[in-house]
């Protein structure tokens, strides 16, 4: 996963989802990506692409604690080395601009990965990219030295050494513990001399991008207008970029549709915003590109609560919820057929996705009632009771999240039928995570996880048993030793097929313990100027920035 505030950024997305709009044509499943593809010779040479971006942070060191958010990462994707590139199914491939060859050289006794760098690859200050850069990044992010303010040490904490191979351009990375998603590491890469000390780590990339190695180089960071522009780098050794310049502008979400209509930007990611979709759909000169987004919305159960600590009750609640109806309501006005998610690990369009519900995700109110009866919750009047306690649950959601409120009302009606009272409890947006989810002051909470091409490495923090009071991200606070072992196996598995199998095995256990109930995958709506080629709704895949441009 990328080190961004996934939960929080996702919540902002939910918040922006309104209601209304009409669905054009017959709904069909969404494509994994939709970018207005065009061969390179159909794309005009030159031009300026202007994109809307979310908030910019001042820190451009991706691995820094205050590192950039999801939108600002796009700027880094045009300027810094990213060693691997994901395709539409979420499978990753080495990027030949930086890697001549990469391989897992040994598995036993220790995993060893050897990177042979492209001999042409060099930083904009003239120094070649080499093992020193890998080593500096690992030393900072492995988490041993608290002087380095880092966002995450996932993966790096498993590395034992980073050594020089046969030359400066060969890097030998040895792992103390195996790590299956190793391609996630060392992207983006930073020059060693800009991150080598805690002071440089904090300040070399503060409000500037001093050194680059990509198809574009920064032209100007304007902090007053909050724009960043990058221009084609003549020193780039790979395929020449079609565009002359890319301008990223920070706009509030409300300002984006107007900016596109006013000709001030050429495209933006509208998230699941039905209102924007309705406003822009059918405007001449604007195409709305849409794909299955990498995010999925789910309902987390608080397994430490007095009522939901019983797995049978959690299962009963899940069975009493008509997930297709919830998905239809939440995705109303958006393109694509609303489909439920049946996997906690992979999204529908991703390789490895499979239905792991094992009956637990099927809508069956009669069975739900029987499960509750068996758990001792007897029907007394409208609501069930047990030992003097009423079966009433708090559904906590951020107050501005319209979609969550609608889903809550729907689920409230569904649960009433089986004798469960659901209390809708809106809370201030800023407090949702800090003051409710983290301390466990909820029974059910809807929020969205952001999927990435590397779904396995973060599974442990979400689904492994909480240790020593630290819940990390396991907000449901449930788990088992067996699940922990399976998760550890999935994370350490080097063979992708076996890793996927282990991850799905873990997912079946997650379904059985009913940690959380996945609801639906969200579509990605990207309105763009129609002439824009090779950019749009990318789903899980990474853009190829050198091919993006305007049609002739």
């Amino acid at each position, binding site marked *: 996963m990328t080190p961004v505030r*996934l939960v929080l950024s996702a919540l902002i997305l939910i918040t922006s989802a309104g209601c209304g709009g009409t669905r054009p044509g017959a709904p069909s499943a969404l494509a994994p990506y939709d970018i207005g593809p065009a061969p390179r010779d159909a794309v005009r040479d030159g031009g300026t692409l202007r994109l809307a971006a979310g908030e910019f942070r001042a820190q451009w060191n991706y691995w820094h604690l205050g590192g950039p958010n999801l939108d600002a990462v796009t700027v880094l994707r045009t300027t810094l080395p990213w060693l691997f590139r994901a395709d539409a199914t979420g499978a990753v491939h080495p990027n030949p601009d930086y890697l001549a060859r990469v391989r897992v050289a040994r598995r036993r006794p220790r995993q060893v990965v050897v990177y042979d760098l492209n001999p042409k690859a060099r930083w904009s200050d003239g120094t070649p990219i080499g093992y020193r850069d890998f080593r500096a990044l690992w030393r900072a992010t492995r988490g041993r030295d*608290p002087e380095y303010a880092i966002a995450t040490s996932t993966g790096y904490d498993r590395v034992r050494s980073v050594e020089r191979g046969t030359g400066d351009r060969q890097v030998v990375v040895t792992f103390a513990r195996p790590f299956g998603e190793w391609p996630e590491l060392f992207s983006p890469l930073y020059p060693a001399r800009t991150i080598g000390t805690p002071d440089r780590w904090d300040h070399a990339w503060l409000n500037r991008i001093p050194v680059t190695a990509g198809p574009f180089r920064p032209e100007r960071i304007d902090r007053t207008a909050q724009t960043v522009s990058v221009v084609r780098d003549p020193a780039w050794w790979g395929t020449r970029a079609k565009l002359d310049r890319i301008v990223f502008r*920070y706009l509030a979400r409300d300002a984006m549709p107007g900016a596109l209509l006013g000709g001030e930007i050429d495209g933006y990611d509208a998230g699941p915003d039905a209102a924007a979709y309705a406003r822009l759909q059918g405007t001449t000169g604007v195409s709305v590109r849409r794909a299955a987004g990498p995010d999925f919305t789910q309902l987390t159960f608080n397994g430490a609560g007095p009522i939901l600590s019983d797995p049978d009750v959690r299962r009963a609640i899940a069975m009493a919820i008509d997930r297709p109806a919830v998905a239809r309501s939440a995705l109303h006005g958006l393109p694509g057929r609303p489909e439920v998610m049946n996997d906690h690990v992979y999204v529908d369009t991703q390789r490895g996705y499979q239905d792991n519900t094992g009956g637990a995700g099927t809508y069956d109110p009669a069975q739900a009632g029987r499960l509750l009866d068996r758990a001792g919750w007897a029907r007394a009047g409208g609501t069930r009771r047990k030992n003097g306690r009423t079966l009433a649950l708090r559904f906590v959601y951020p107050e501005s999240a319209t979609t969550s409120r609608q889903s809550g009302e729907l689920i409230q009606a569904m649960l009433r039928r089986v004798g469960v009272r659901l209390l809708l409890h809106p809370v201030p947006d*800023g407090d949702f995570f800090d003051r409710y989810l983290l301390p466990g002051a909820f029974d059910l909470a809807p929020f969205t996880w952001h999927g990435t091409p590397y779904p396995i490495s973060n599974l442990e923090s979400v689904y492994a048993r909480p240790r020593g009071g630290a819940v990390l991200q396991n907000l449901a606070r449930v788990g088992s030793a067996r699940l922990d072992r399976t998760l550890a196996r999935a994370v350490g598995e080097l063979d992708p097929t076996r890793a996927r199998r282990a991850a799905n095995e873990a997912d079946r256990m997650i379904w059985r313990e009913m940690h959380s109930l996945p609801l639906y995958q969200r579509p990605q709506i990207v309105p763009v100027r129609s002439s824009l080629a090779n950019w749009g709704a990318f789903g899980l895949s990474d853009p190829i920035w050198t091919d993006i441009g305007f049609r002739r």
Partner: protein
Amino acid sequence: MAGVLLRRSAGQAVLLAVAVSLAYLLAAAALDPRAELEARNPRPSHAVVEARLARLNADDRTPLVVRYLTWASGAVRGDLGRTVDDTPAAEEMGRRAGVSLRLLLAGVLLGNALGAALGLVGAAGRSPVIERLAAAGGFTVLAVPVVVLATVGEIAAQWADARTGTRIFAWTGEYTPGRPGGSLHAIAERGRHLVLPTLTIALGRAAVLAHYLRGTLRDTADAAFVRAAVAKGLTRRRVLTRHALRVAVIPVVPLSAYGCATLLGGAACTEKVFAWHGMGEWLIDSIHRGDVNAVAAYCCFAAIVVTGAGLLSDLAVAALDPRTRT
């Protein structure tokens, strides 16, 4: 006169210090930067969070008084601490204040002028239809949220552009970045971007001002000196503009001054919708991020502006009202 002003300034400096201190204490007590850091995904390690909080002078384990003293000793030297982004808060404040000022200046001036004109028309009482229309228009503007007003403006501008076949209006940001051109072109570009925000702000100001001014003008219109002037043969319009307005405007001046001051820090909706990155947006974003120093810096700015507006309005009232000149 000078003595009065001097005494008032001294009093206001004390008031300023108290207000700013309270604002800091409130921000430090209410905001929770630790929770914000810990809620990040993936979650940073404990040591990293501690180090960051110590650097920001925002560690909730340090007593509030100690944090306040650290902050205050910096603040008197002009150092307002660092934002969560590790940038000096004073520097960011300066930049943002400039943006707010550029966004609001024209709007406020136009709004005041328009408000005065509408107030006069309303009070003149010549045509009840115009009077009613002005009142209804004012209330409509006040009742409609800025976002809607702005969107209506955008749609109208789009329509106008489509009709004329040229692009006259622009409504995103201060200027279009990445477009070449000389300084003359740059000025025109900024002007083009100012039209819609200025109108949005001016309409709001004008609606408030016209409403109050109409009221005070009507009260003044019944005063003895006005009736005397009319009896001596002056036209009603002349009496209103030359004599009554000067008196009627006195109670409205402080209202307008404080209104503009709060606008300078509180035009968040306008800023967001037109993508200007000013003070209002900064406050909202900083509260969301649990950024104590940024919120405190904002409060300093707001306190200074409001105090300054108070002084200015005193001066204006003194100039208008001979009775205050003792």
